[in-house]
């Protein structure tokens, strides 16, 4: 339990001399190191074993899964489970739907959010802190509060049979965090820069687009990643607005996966979970520092 104290041990070593302290110090440190190693190993097993188990199970046949030990390796490696999940299980279609809903929403949200963040942080006018507060309030409201009126509107305007309800709802619900984070990033950009640009003859809109947007490019990537994970992993909104099986996003599709197959086919089900999990994991592994920073800074500021 003791906190590692290099200062103290090295000081002690210096005062008592190496011969006197080497023994007791080493003995005191050894169990401490072992303790840390055990905790770290346990942590790794807990974090990673479920994923390995899932991967191995996705390569088993139904027989293999039901009759052999859950610890065993696949007797035959059924790579066909993946093609089955992708085509027969319609996972390919679901991924396509997700992309078609998520990417436009993301682009729209970032564009509108950046412009609003600029107007709220750089521009000077009465009532801008109140407007920012109105945006912020949106983060507290549970999405259940807006589902039913939106469902009614989408139904009456005939948008229900398309992916537009998802695009619009994701954009709207994502705006509070986007606006807030962009406004925060603009706080580090001095206003004088834009005043100077307008003296040189650029309009303020032009200054926004050609000067401020490139300056917050990094922030755009961070906010974009955060929102991507939120929207890609969303279940509630997608479940509400996609009655049509052909419009299902990947999460809704995965949830209904066993239903589509009638009797449960475990191999393809696990393959579908794997595709979903390792797809997001891949993005994370490439950009892990950015993702961690983005997700946590969004949390603290929100």
């Amino acid at each position, binding site marked *: 339990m003791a906190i590692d104290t290099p*200062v103290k041990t090295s000081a002690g070593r210096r005062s008592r001399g190496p011969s006197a302290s080497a023994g007791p110090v080493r003995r005191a440190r050894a169990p401490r190191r072992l303790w840390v190693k055990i905790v770290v190993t346990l942590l790794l097993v807990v974090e990673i074993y479920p994923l390995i188990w899932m991967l191995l199970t996705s390569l088993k046949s139904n027989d293999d899964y039901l009759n052999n030990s*859950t610890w065993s390796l696949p007797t035959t490696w059924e790579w066909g489970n993946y093609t089955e999940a992708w085509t027969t299980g319609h996972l390919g279609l679901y991924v396509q739907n997700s992309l078609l809903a998520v990417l436009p929403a993301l682009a729209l949200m970032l564009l*509108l959010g950046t*412009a609003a963040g600029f107007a709220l942080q750089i*521009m000077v006018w009465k009532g801008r802190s109140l407007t920012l507060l109105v945006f912020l309030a949106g983060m507290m409201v549970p999405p259940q509060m807006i589902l039913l009126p939106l469902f009614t509107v989408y139904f009456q305007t005939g948008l229900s049979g398309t992916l537009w309800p998802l695009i619009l709802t994701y954009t709207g619900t994502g705006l509070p965090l986007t606006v807030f984070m962009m406004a925060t990033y603009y706080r580090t950009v001095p206003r004088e820069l834009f005043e100077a640009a307008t003296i040189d003859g650029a309009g*303020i809109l032009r200054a926004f687009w050609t000067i401020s947007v490139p300056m917050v490019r990094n922030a755009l990537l961070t906010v974009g990643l955060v929102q991507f994970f939120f929207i890609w992993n969303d279940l509630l909104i997608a479940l509400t607005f996609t009655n049509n099986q052909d419009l299902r996003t990947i*999460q809704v599709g995965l949830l209904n996966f066993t239903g589509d197959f009638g009797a449960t086919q475990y191999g393809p089900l696990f393959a579908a979970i794997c595709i979903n999990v390792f797809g997001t*994991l891949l993005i994370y592994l490439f950009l892990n520092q950015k993702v961690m920073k983005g997700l946590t800074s969004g949390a603290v500021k929100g």
Partner: protein
Amino acid sequence: MHRVLGDRRAIAILLGPALLVYSLIMLVPIVWSLGYSFTQGNTIEGFTGNGGANFSRLFEDPAVRDALWFTLTYAALVTVGQVVAGYLLALLYVFFLKRSSALIRTLAFFPVVLPTVAVGLLFQKFFQVAPQTGPVNSLLNAVGLDSIDFFGSAGSAFWVLILMDIWRSMGFYAVLLFAGLVDIPDEVLESARLDGASGLRLIRHIVLPLSLPVLMSSLIFSINGTLKVFDSVVALTNGGPGNGTTPLTLYMFQTSFTYSDYGYGSTIALLLTVVCLLVSLAVYRVSRRDITEG
């Protein structure tokens, strides 16, 4: 010079679209939903006003009481669990692993980005007893214990849910709190050590008070999120067995879309919103008092 940055037309062009979309998707529906709570019916059959009937029903509905209780206990347990687990991990990162913690941090953050539906299905199979004994029950059998049907009773399903959500999020809180711990100046820690504080005493009297602000914002963030729990419940238990693991969010969803009762669904959504606001406000006030006193 203020004329340039105060250009009303530019402000309207920049802010207008965002404000419009936000108003149409969030603000108007919130007010509209309030209106629904005084009606009965749904989009297809039409709505008829029923005065305050939904509200009196809300207070007498035992399912609401159960769902509210479930939501609050879930939020409390998961919040404590994930913040404590995250804090212990953060202490491990800062004081034991030091510079070598980057890899562990990355790995422990894995589950945070995974889709909840996939994690829910995975845990369902991980803890299942039939048709195949999952790893957890196999482990129990291996040490000579009987299999447990985790999803057979609301009590055990609840604990699997709690465990899953702590597994999912502790890496997130670990990184959040890690950032807070790294900010503690080295001089403070070293002078405390020279004064003889070490181990638990150092954590209790120096580290904990200094990381209180970030602990508090973690708590607020966690409560705000856990009160809205939906995905993990739907994917893991779908509210069952019976209504044993149904939070307010899911009860609202079922009332609205399974039973097509939009009016009562809106009333439940309103209750959820009020609960979220009240709890957040309470936590916020307590945390502010603590920080100024500490």
